[in-house]
C-alpha cells in the first residue's frame, strides 16, 4: 500500500464523517487562526510604528498639556486643561535657551464642517504657524503655505490636505477657490502632498489655518491663547535627548514649576509611541498565544478522541485488512495519515479564518494586521504535526489489534 493509496483511503474515511471531522478540528482551527492573528498583529504593529515614525520624523518631540504621571486630576488630564499656550511655543523657539531645537509648531485643532459648492465635509481644522510645514516634514503639491503675514493679520486663508480637497472639489487643483469653514469664507492658498495615515489620524484629511485665525475666529473657547499640541523638532536624531531636556527646563521655568514631577505638561517622543504600541502588542500577544496554545491542545485531544472512536468503529475493517495481509505498519500509517488529514483540515480552515479576520479586524481594533505567508505555511505544518502527535496512540492501538479479535467484533 503506497502513499497515494494510504492518502486516498484515509481521506475517504475523514470525508465519510464530514460533520464529525469538522467539529473535531474546531480546536485546531481556532488555535491556528489565533497564531496567524498573533504573528500578523506583531508585524502590523511594527509596520504601524515605523510608518508613524517616518510620517512624523524620528527627531520629533510632542508636548501635550496635562500631566501623564498624575491621575488625581488636580492639574488636569489630557485635553481637560489649557496649560499650553502660544507663548510656550515662542519660548521653545529660543536659540539661547534651547539650542538643540530646530523648529517649533503649535497646533490648535478641532473638528469642523467645511462646505464648498454645496458639498459638505467634516474634517480636522488645525490652526498652526508657518513653521509647521518644516517641523512636520510635509510638502505642498500646489500653492503655498500660510505665511507670517497671514498669522499676523489672522487672515482667512487655508491649506487643505489632498483628501479633503478631493472630497470637496473632486480634484486637488483648488488653489484660489473659496471654502466655507464654520460659516466663514476662507481662501485656499495651498494643498498638501499626500503623506498617508498613521494609526491615529488621516494625515491627508485636514485643513490648516493660521493659529491666530483659529484662536480668534474658529476655536476660541475660554482661553484663546491655549494650544492643544506643540511639536518640537530637534536639530538631529542625536540631539533629541538634549532637546528634550531643554524643552522641559524652558517650560518648567515659564510655568514656574519647581520639579519635573509636578509638570502640567507631558513631553513624549517617538520612542514613547513605540513603547505604547509595543506594550499593547505584548498584551495582545500573551492573550492570543494563550488562546492558541489552549485551542491547539484541546484540538489535539479532540483528534485523539475521535481517532479512538474511529479505531473502535472500524475494528472489523482493521481485522479484515489484517486478514488480507496488511502488516501492522500499514494499519498504523493509515490511521496516522487520517489524523494528519484532520490536522491539515483544521490548519487550512484555521488559516482561512485567520486571514479573513486579519483583513476585517484592523477596521475594528485600529491597528494593522499583516498576513505573513511563511507564518501561514508554518502554522498549517504545526496543525499537521498536532494531528500526527495525537494520532500516534490511536494508530498504535489499531496496529496492535489481534486480527482474530478484530474480525470477531461486531
Amino acid at each position, binding site marked *: *500500500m503506497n502513499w497515494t*493509496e494510504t492518502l486516498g483511503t484515509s481521506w*475517504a474515511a475523514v470525508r*465519510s464523517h464530514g460533520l464529525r471531522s469538522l467539529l473535531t478540528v474546531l480546536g485546531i482551527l481556532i488555535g491556528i487562526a489565533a497564531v496567524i492573528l498573533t504573528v500578523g498583529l506583531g508585524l502590523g504593529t511594527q509596520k504601524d510604528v515605523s510608518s508613524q515614525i517616518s510620517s512624523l520624523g524620528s527627531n520629533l518631540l510632542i508636548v501635550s498639556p496635562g500631566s501623564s504621571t498624575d491621575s488625581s486630576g488636580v492639574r488636569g488630564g489630557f485635553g481637560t486643561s489649557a496649560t499650553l499656550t502660544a507663548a510656550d511655543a515662542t519660548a521653545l523657539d529660543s536659540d539661547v535657551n534651547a539650542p538643540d531645537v530646530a523648529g517649533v509648531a503649535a497646533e490648535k485643532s478641532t473638528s469642523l464642517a467645511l462646505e464648498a459648492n454645496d458639498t459638505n465635509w467634516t474634517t480636522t481644522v488645525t490652526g498652526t504657524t508657518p513653521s509647521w510645514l518644516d517641523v512636520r516634514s510635509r510638502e505642498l503639491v500646489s500653492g503655498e503655505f500660510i505665511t507670517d503675514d497671514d498669522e499676523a493679520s489672522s487672515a482667512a486663508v487655508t491649506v487643505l490636505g489632498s483628501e479633503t480637497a478631493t472630497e470637496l472639489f473632486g480634484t486637488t487643483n483648488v488653489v484660489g477657490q473659496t471654502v466655507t469653514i464654520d460659516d466663514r469664507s476662507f481662501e485656499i492658498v495651498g494643498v498638501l502632498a499626500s503623506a498617508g495615515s498613521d494609526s491615529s489620524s488621516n494625515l491627508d484629511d485636514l485643513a490648516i489655518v493660521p493659529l491666530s485665525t483659529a484662536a480668534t475666529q474658529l476655536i476660541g473657547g475660554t482661553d484663546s491663547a491655549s494650544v492643544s499640541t506643540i511639536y518640537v523638532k530637534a536639530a538631529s536624531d542625536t540631539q533629541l535627548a538634549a532637546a528634550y531636556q531643554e524643552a522641559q527646563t524652558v517650560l518648567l521655568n515659564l510655568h514656574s514649576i519647581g520639579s519635573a514631577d509636578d509638570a502640567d505638561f507631558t513631553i513624549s517622543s517617538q520612542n514613547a509611541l513605540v513603547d505604547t504600541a509595543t506594550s499593547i502588542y505584548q498584551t495582545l500577544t500573551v492573550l492570543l498565544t494563550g488562546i492558541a496554545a489552549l485551542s491547539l491542545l484541546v484540538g489535539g485531544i479532540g483528534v485523539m478522541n475521535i481517532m479512538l472512536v474511529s479505531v473502535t468503529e472500524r475494528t*472489523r*475493517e482493521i481485522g*479484515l*485488512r*489484517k*486478514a*488480507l*495481509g*496488511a*502488516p*501492522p*505498519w*500499514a494499519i498504523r500509517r493509515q490511521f496516522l495519515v487520517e489524523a494528519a488529514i484532520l490536522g491539515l483540515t483544521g490548519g487550512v480552515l484555521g488559516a482561512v479564518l485567520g486571514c479573513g479576520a486579519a483583513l476585517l479586524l484592523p477596521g475594528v481594533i485600529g491597528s494593522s494586521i499583516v498576513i505573513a505567508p511563511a507564518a501561514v505555511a508554518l502554522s498549517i505544518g504545526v496543525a499537521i504535526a498536532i494531528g500526527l502527535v495525537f494520532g500516534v496512540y490511536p494508530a498504535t492501538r489499531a496496529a496492535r489489534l*489481534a*486480527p*482474530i479479535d478484530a*474480525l470477531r467484533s461486531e
Partner: protein
Amino acid sequence: MSALAPTVQPHMPEGEYGEPVIQLTAARKVYRSGTIEFEALRGVDLEIRQGEYVAIMGPSGSGKSTLMNILGCLDTLTTGHYRLAGHDVDDLDEAELAEIRNKEIGFVFQQFNLLPSLEAWRNVELPLMYGRVPSHERRARAERALERVGLGSRLANKPGELSGGQQQRVAVARALVAEPTMILADEPTGNLDSVSTRDVLGLFDELHELGRTIVLITHELEVAQRARRIVWVRDGVIADPAETARAIGHAGPGGGAAA
C-alpha cells in the same frame, strides 16, 4: 518436513495430491478469559496436501472455527506446531504472519466481510494492494477475478448494491485474486439461499479442478459432500475414520460418502 510427520492421520490423502500444504502437529489451543480456561483444541494432527478439497464438519462449539483461525494464521497455537507451505508459522511475528496470509491464504467468511465503502473491484484488489502489486496490474487482475466469478458487469457496484450471493462471489474473487496456495472458507454458504449456494460451490469445484487447495467449514452435508475429504471435529479433536463415517451417516440421509 518429514521430521514433522503427524503421528495420527485419520484420512490419508489420495496419492494424486502433491506436497503437504498444511501440517498441524499436536495442536492445542487454550482460550483464557480471566481465570477461566477453555481448551478448544486438544491435540489435533492434520495434514492437507497441495490440490486437496477438504471439508471440516462437526457439532457447534466443537472447535471448527478455532481450527480455521489457526490454519489461516489469524491466531496462534498454545502448544504444538503448525507448518504452512514450508513456513514454520510458530516462530513468525505479526508482520511476517501478515505476509504469509497475504501470499498463501485466500479467506472467504460467512459474513462476506466486504468493505461497504469500496466498489466491488476495489474490494477485490485489497490483497494485491497489501502484496505491493503495481496499481495498473491490480485493476486488470481484479477485473479478471470478478469475471471469473460471473460479476464482470458489476465491477463498480458497492457491496450494498449487490445481493448476498453476489457479495459472496465478490469475496471469492477477492480470495483467489492473489493466487494463494490455499482458500480457507468458514461457512461460506451459511448466509446464502440454495441458488447462491450452488453458484459458490460451483466456483469452488472449478477452482479445485484447476488444482487449488480448498478447506471449507460447513454444517451442511450436501456442501461437505462436494469436497473430496471430510474431517470431523468433536470436542477439540479430530474423529477417527469409523467415527467420522458414523457421524456423517447421522448427519444426513444420504450420508457415508466421505473420502
